[in-house]
């Protein structure tokens, strides 16, 4: 048994794939029709396939409610690891990304939080070196 797939809800799959690839820099791995106008859409970190992130439509009202409740409370729905948080913060800010928390030291880890434009806040963290 292993963890291979993780999913987050997104408001708009077309906007999500643009943001997660063009802005964040992930690579699209899978894109298949999944019924109606929805797609089975996943991304991976560049050059890796150890974990896929599925960008799942939040069509279910329960998903919308869950997503909005987390967002409005400022709670990230997931976290991505980076090697250099300050550099990523500068790069993404220059690309127009909205951060709700600048790089902040929290114990041994530094973190920052941004909006993915699809209804989620995402935390970036740099583990201790």
């Amino acid at each position, binding site marked *: 048994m292993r963890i291979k*797939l993780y*999913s987050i809800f997104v*408001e*708009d799959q077309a*906007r999500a794939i643009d*943001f997660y690839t063009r802005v964040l820099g992930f690579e699209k791995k*899978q894109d*298949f029709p*999944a*019924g*109606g106008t*929805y797609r*089975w859409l996943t991304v991976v970190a560049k050059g890796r*396939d150890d974990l896929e992130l*599925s960008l*799942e*439509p939040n*069509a*279910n009202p*329960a998903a919308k409610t869950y997503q909005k409740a987390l*967002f*409005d409370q*400022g709670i990230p729905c997931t976290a991505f690891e980076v090697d250099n948080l300050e550099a990523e913060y500068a790069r993404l*800010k220059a690309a*127009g*990304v*909205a*951060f*709700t928390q*600048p790089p902040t030291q929290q114990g041994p880890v530094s973190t920052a939080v941004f*909006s993915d*434009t*699809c*209804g989620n806040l995402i935390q970036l963290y740099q583990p201790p070196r």
Partner: protein
Amino acid sequence: MLIQRATFRRLCRARDLLTEVTEPLSIAELARRAGMSQFHFIRQFEALFGTTPHQLRMKARIDHAKRMLSSDQASVTTVCMDVGFASLGSFSSLFARRVGMSPSEYRRVHVQVPDQLLAPAHSCFGVLAQLPLEAFRNFGEATHPGALQDSVR
């Protein structure tokens, strides 16, 4: 950009107001309530929510119209007025552009099968079962094109 906590809360509130079709506050008024210029309001709103205030309002109106058309007996004109459009022509053409069919056609298709409205409630794990074999291919296989064909055979 960095959005401070108080501004974040005000932008979330503005988003909520924009999705209430019965609360047609102008964008200028929403910006004023959020305590910033209209330019900064639109810019920060779009960076946070991925859509402009106006686009979000139009989407909320169309979504509301879709719900009314599939569940109410109200005429298309009444739906148009209820969701905040003054002209039936602009409502119908925007609806057709966004939804791919006219309001009356949408009603005809959806009112007969209301259960379909709940159909998008699938989960990603339900979808997994319907995926083609290629979906489970990994990068290792991708570098050896023969591998997939072999596994399919």
